[in-house]
């Protein structure tokens, strides 16, 4: 398309095709191309942003890629506005500027995330092999090859399991209390939960360290699970409460109008309807806890060998493994830490997908039974 097509609105529409005669045979309808000018202007704006920034870099002798990117972005936004203002009107130009800004912000957020993930993958993929996944660090000297992450994977899985089993039922029942029962103490409970969500994770660790580890129980995966559960409860509770709020009150009324006591209405109607939201809430709680280092350091202490029992003796987990290896001054250990980071990311991904799949399948079984 030529650039002349950019000005469709200025004059009375010049018919590009001959005026439609009342012809009898019907031409099959085709979708009309709309807002073609935007694409051209977008290209122009991108081009002007890049060239303008490049010229400035040459003129002022800038060498930082980030400087180039920031100026390119600013010039791109500016020319988007000016081009639209020239071809359309100030209102359209503002609209396009803001739309572009929103897209750009989203793009930046996603690209930072991808960059970070890519970095972890690039750094970690080299050390990732079967041996790494299935062995621990107990027989590995400071300069040795080999060794692995298995003991930390076991620790993370066991501790997350303990923390989830402890915190998710409590959190969901608390959300039910806050939003379904709306008891007299709801205000206080909500306040405490909010205060808890601001609790620094190391304080949760210190608490368990003092009341559990130091009281003769010693360090264990269970202690770490307790500390992580404290961190998960507020996140899961508040998210679950928000999810319960999205359930139409009409459903609760219908259930009660059928003669249901409130607990049956909650168990059979409200919670199943909120099912996928509650799974999301649980996932957010797990995500909050799985990356915690400080509480685990104070409660499970970390270990370089495998400890299957979460109830007895020090245990490692992935964030702690990464933290401890990254502080070592030798490249082999640091490479192991990066691989550990990659394993952690993959583990979280697998857990999330599993939770979703289980949630969906459960819903289908429920819907299709009888």
């Amino acid at each position, binding site marked *: 398309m030529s650039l002349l097509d950019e000005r469709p609105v200025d004059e009375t529409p010049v018919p590009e095709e001959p005026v439609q005669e009342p012809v009898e045979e019907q031409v099959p309808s085709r979708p009309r191309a709309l807002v073609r000018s935007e694409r051209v202007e977008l290209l122009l704006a991108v081009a002007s942003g890049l060239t303008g920034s490049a010229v400035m870099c040459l003129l002022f002798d800038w060498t930082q890629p980030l400087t180039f990117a920031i100026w390119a972005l600013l010039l791109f936004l500016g020319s988007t506005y000016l081009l639209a203002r020239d071809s359309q009107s100030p209102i359209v130009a503002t609209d396009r500027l803001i739309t572009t800004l929103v897209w750009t912000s989203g793009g930046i957020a996603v690209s930072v995330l991808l960059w970070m993930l890519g970095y972890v993958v690039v750094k970690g993929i080299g050390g990732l092999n079967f041996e790494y996944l299935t062995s621990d660090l107990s027989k590995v000297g400071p300069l040795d090859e080999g060794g692995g992450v298995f003991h930390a994977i076991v620790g993370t899985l066991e501790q997350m399991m303990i923390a989830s089993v402890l915190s998710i039922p409590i959190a969901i029942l608390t959300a039910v209390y806050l939003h379904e029962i709306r008891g007299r103490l709801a205000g206080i409970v909500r306040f405490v939960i909010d205060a808890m969500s601001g609790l620094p994770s190391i304080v949760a660790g210190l608490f368990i360290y003092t009341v559990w580890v130091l009281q003769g129980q010693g360090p264990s995966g269970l202690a770490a699970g307790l500390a992580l559960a404290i961190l998960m409860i507020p996140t899961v509770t508040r998210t679950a409460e928000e999810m319960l709020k999205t359930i*139409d009150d009409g459903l609760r*009324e219908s259930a009660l109008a059928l003669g249901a006591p409130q607990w049956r209405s909650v168990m059979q109607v409200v919670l199943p309807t909120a099912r996928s939201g509650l799974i999301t809430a649980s996932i957010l709680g797990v995500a909050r806890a799985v990356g915690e280092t400080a509480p685990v350091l104070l409660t499970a202490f970390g270990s370089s060998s495998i400890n299957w029992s979460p109830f007895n003796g020090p245990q490692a987990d992935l964030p702690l493994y990464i933290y401890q290896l990254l502080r070592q001054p030798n490249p082999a250990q640091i490479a192991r830490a990066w691989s550990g980071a990659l394993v952690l990311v993959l583990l979280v991904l697998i857990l999330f997908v599993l939770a979703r799949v289980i949630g969906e399948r459960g819903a289908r079984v429920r819907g*299709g039974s009888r």
Partner: protein
Amino acid sequence: MTTIQSPQTAETPAANRQVVSSEILPEEQHPSSRIDATDVTCWFGKRKVLERCTLSMEPGEVTALIGPSGCGKSTFLRSLNRMHELVPVAAIAGTIELDGVDIYSEEMSPTEVRSRIGMVFQKPNPFPAMSIADNVLAGLSLSGMSNEDPKALVEQCLRRAGLWAEVSDRLNEGGMSLSGGQQQRLCIARALAVHPDVLLMDEPCSALDPISTRVIEQTIRELCEEITIVIVTHNMQQAQRVSDKCAFFLVESIGDPGRIVEAGPTAQVFENPSDPRTYDYVTGQFG
């Protein structure tokens, strides 16, 4: 079991009512109940929304509650099965007797009242997490009842609600996959499954198209043989079409509670009302 198709139902309602009661419902049939509301006054907090409403809803009849918006019709309806008290600040005075027993007395629990007096709401709201069949049966499990033959009950209730022909081949699909009118009939079937003596309907057709409305009106006329029905409606024609008896609610001036201005046989209320305000309302000169 005889198969009833909905088109026939539309043409010969009287004949089909006979079939419904004698063949589809051999033993579940129970004598209709009556509700007598005496001096019912309702509050939300300090605000009195309904004052001294006295109305008898006779067995086997359809009673329509009409009146402009905000005149307390829905509040009155919700007080009849103790849904009014679900609002934390709500209060009520007066008595409401179901077959002579005050539903607000200690003899009756709210859950018992609600399983004997069913309700259909303005907005169709099938339970999204359940299939069509499970929606029909939801009332049983929710109120702790059991049924020996759930399949037959599902079919029977869906037939009575005029929905069976449309959904019989997809009972395991989700309730939300239905159209609005079908959803509302599913809600009626759900309410029927617990065998209520009375069915309250709060503007059941206000969100529906005319065709769905007609099907539901036919359903109401068929059901009233066995169940006492109370329906709130804004639609004068609907009140005339479906009800035997009519009560006109009105708020006289802003801030006043709603009162029953006139109640009586539908034909009389519409054709020969005794109160001029009723006349104005039913002839469309007001409201």
